Each structure stands twice: as C-alpha cells, then as structure tokens.
C-alpha cells in the first residue's frame, strides 16, 4: 500500500516536536476528520533555519509532515511557499489516491505557518494571497 519511503518517514519521522519561540506557527485540519497538522518555523534572514511538526493523523499524514519539513529546511521563504503537495507525495515515492489529501494538508500547514510569520512581521509573501488555512482539503 505505502512505499518504503512513506513507511520510513512514518516510523522514523524527521523534525518531530515543537519550537518554543517559533517565528511562525500554522495548524490545519480538524480532529473530527481525524487529522491535525501543526508546523513550527524558525526563520532567520528569510531562511527557514529550523522546522518542527506535530501531527495527529494517519500514516501518510505523519510521513507527509516529516517529508515536507525536510523539504523546506534550510530553504528560503520563496522556495518554501512554492512547495506543492505533489512534490511532497513524489518525494515519498507516491501516495495512494485516497491518501493524496494528506499531502495537501502538509502543504497547507506550511503555508499557514508562513502566513502566521508574515502577519507577525507585517510582511507579504508572494504566493500566499489566495491561501485560506481553514479550507478543508478532505473530499470526504
């Protein structure tokens, strides 16, 4: 069902935890749907120097969080905002069709954290104009 990569990131997730004095925090999902993803960002000079996550969700939600945090760590805000759920899924060697929305969740959690950063610092980030963190990525 899941690729080895997914299982690896599920069993040994990277970047689990919280950042006490995070510069941006984003949470998406809904416990009613069985998933919540929370991302903490530490940003210095436009670069994501640290990132942590906490996720309540299925295996692919956890793996997606882990992979997504890996993909943006050390990257610039501009690069991070461009991270798509497809890129996350591809980096995991694919996800089953019914599980694609878990990667959407990861993309959104990062965007939500970036939006939080932007608001706190009164800056605008290109690519976040249309982003609504309360939109439900689940089709179910």
């Amino acid at each position, binding site marked *: 069902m899941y690729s080895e990569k997914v299982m690896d990131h599920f069993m040994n*997730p990277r970047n689990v935890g919280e950042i006490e004095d995070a510069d941006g925090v984003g949470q998406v999902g809904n416990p009613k749907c069985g998933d919540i993803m929370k991302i903490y960002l530490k940003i210095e000079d436009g670069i994501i120097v640290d990132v942590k996550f906490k996720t309540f969700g299925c295996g692919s939600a*956890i793996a997606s969080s882990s992979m997504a945090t890996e993909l943006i760590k050390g990257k610039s805000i501009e690069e991070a905002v461009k991270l798509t759920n497809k890129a996350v899924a591809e980096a995991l060697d694919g996800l089953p069709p019914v599980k694609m929305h878990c990667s959407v969740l990861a993309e959104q959690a990062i965007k939500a954290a970036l939006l939080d950063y932007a608001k706190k610092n009164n800056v605008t980030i290109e690519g976040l104009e249309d982003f609504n963190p309360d939109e439900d990525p689940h089709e179910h």
Partner: protein
Amino acid sequence: MERYVYMDYAATTPVKKEVLEEMMPYFTEKYGNPSSIYRIGRESRAAIDEARERVAKIIEAKPKEIYFTSGGSESDNWAIKGVAFANRDKGNHIITSKIEHHAVLHACEYLEKHGFEVTYLDVDEYGIVDLEQLKNAITDKTILITIMFANNEIGTIQPIQEIGKIAREKGVYFHTDAVQAIGNVEIDVNKLNIDLLSMSAHKFYGPKGVGVLYIREGVKIHPYIHGGAQEKNRRAGTENVAGIVGLAKALELAYENLEEHNKKLVYLRDKLIKEVTNKIDYVRVNGHPEKRLPGNVNFSIEFVEGEALLLSLDMMGIAASSGSACTSGSLDPSHVLLAIGLPHEIAHGSLRFTLGDFNTEEDVDYVVESLVKIVERLREMSPLYEN
C-alpha cells in the same frame, strides 16, 4: 521482528487443517457437477446434501431450510431484497438498526430508491437496539425486521430472542445477520423465532466465498440469482462443492467445544482489556461489558489516529483493525462508533482486536507491551496530547 500475532479474527480466519482436508477431494477426484446424473455427480450431490444436514442440525433447522450462497454479503442481499420484493403486496416498510453491516445497510438503501421505506433504529451507548422504539416502529406496512445478531466492530450481542418474539407477535419476518455470531454463540432458530439468518464460512475457520442463508419453511422470498434449478430453484449456479463441505465441517468444529473455546477467548479478551486500560490512559472500551462476543475488544485511544496505530502494530507483526475491515478503503469514521455516541475525534482512534482459536496468553502480553510503546510514540507526535 520475528513474531506474528493475528488478532483480526472478525475480519477473516485461516481455514483449519481438518476443514481443508475434507474439502480437498472435491477439487480433483470428486469434481462432478451435483446436477449430473452419473456417479461422480451423485457423489457431489450427496456431499452437499450431507453438508446441508450438518448445518441444519447446528441451528436446529430443517435441511431444506438451508441454502448455500457465496458469502455473508450475498446472503444479506438476498434475504432483504428477496423478502422485500416478494412481499411488496403486503407492505413496503423495513426495520433495521443504525449499526448493521454495510451489506444490510446498502441493501436497505437500495430498496429506499425502489419505493421502500426503512426505519433505522437507534442503539444505546453499548450498541443495543431500543426495543420500545422497535415496537413503536412496526406498522401494518412492515414486512421485515433485520437486526444483526452480533456487531462486527464492537461485538455487542443483540437481544435476539426478544426481537424474534416481537416480530412473531406482529407477524413480521425476522432476518438476522449472524455472520459474526455464528460459531461463537448457540443459535436455535426456533427458540429465537428467526425466519432468516445469514452466515459466512470464512468467519469461522472455513473458506472464503461461501455462506448460508437459512430460510424458514413458508417464508415468501424471491430468488436472487436466477438461472439453473440448483438449491431447489432458489439459488442458481453450479454449487461450490468444496466450499460447501468446508463450511459444514468448520461449523461442526466450532460447535464441538464451544464452551471451552469461549472460556479461553473471554479470559484472553478480559486480560487484554484490563491490561491496556491499566497501562494506557485516555482509553475507552467500546461495546457492552458482558453482552459481547467472546473474542471482541474495541478500544478508542484518544489523541491518536486508527490507521497510524494499525501501521505501527503491523510493523511489530501484529494484525488488528480499526472499524470494519470491509470498509477500510473509506476515510470516514465508523458508522457504528458514531451510532453509540462517540465523537468523531475519538472514533478516529478506534482499534479492534478480535481473538481467535490460535491466540495465546503470550500473544496478549506481546500486544499489550507493543501497544504501550506505540501509543506513547504517536502521542508524542500528536498536537492534541499534553503530557
């Protein structure tokens, strides 16, 4: 991880050695079509007739009231749609419960699209149907009550005798989906006033793809699979002789030492419940404390999600399920857990262990030990859990 612990006997069971042995000749030497007149055909016919008698004896039915099908889902579909269409002139109302298996619920929904009305009875927090609501729901248009014997997810056993009595008094047919109960509970269709009953062999150590519909003599029902004259013209299709023989043998074995089997399962079940609830906080046990299947354990583990639990267990070599195995393609939380009043977020953390004949006390110890670690790990990742 060398160890493999299967604790999903409600999803399916392995075929027992003795069962497979009885089946084997019917694949190769005794392959005759039971409708054929010559020797190997008559031998197949005799094997089926004998199987029919063996099954009938166990539920106190007559052999001619036993019809072989392709499994529990076909039996449920046949019972419900077959009775509905055959009794359309009498009425168009059917009563069921909110916690039935999808084979029953979706058959009922299909009938709703074809002019039938269906009442879905509520259940209490333990999953037991409301008998008063049942009585009140019956009208002169009611033609069928279909309530499962025992629930596949939470293991709750319904007050079947009372339901049968109500149905009989009102002259309404009573079908019960006994797919989970059979092999675990004594069933006498006469004492319990059951008119139709579904079973599926692979739930009691028989093969997959064969089942039974018991139809009380005199019940008005249409055939569901039309064609040849098999099963007294009521269920067409060349009979799955090996499967039918296997079903009968498996059923016999299940009832051979039912008491002992159940004693062992109840002991393991209660041990698993006790230890998990002792060692892990924020755990809820779903279903009825006593009126439950001997092998069924259903937990809700807060702040973690069911699939993540299952995957982690699988990595430790433990097979369990979350909600019904039949619907794991779906992302919605189980309709059964919602019906007993669990909030969505707690329903998502549900975990079912169903014990069976090959489980040992060591299995239970291993599961407890593993689960403690897994829950700890997942909760550490969970934004909902504060320790």
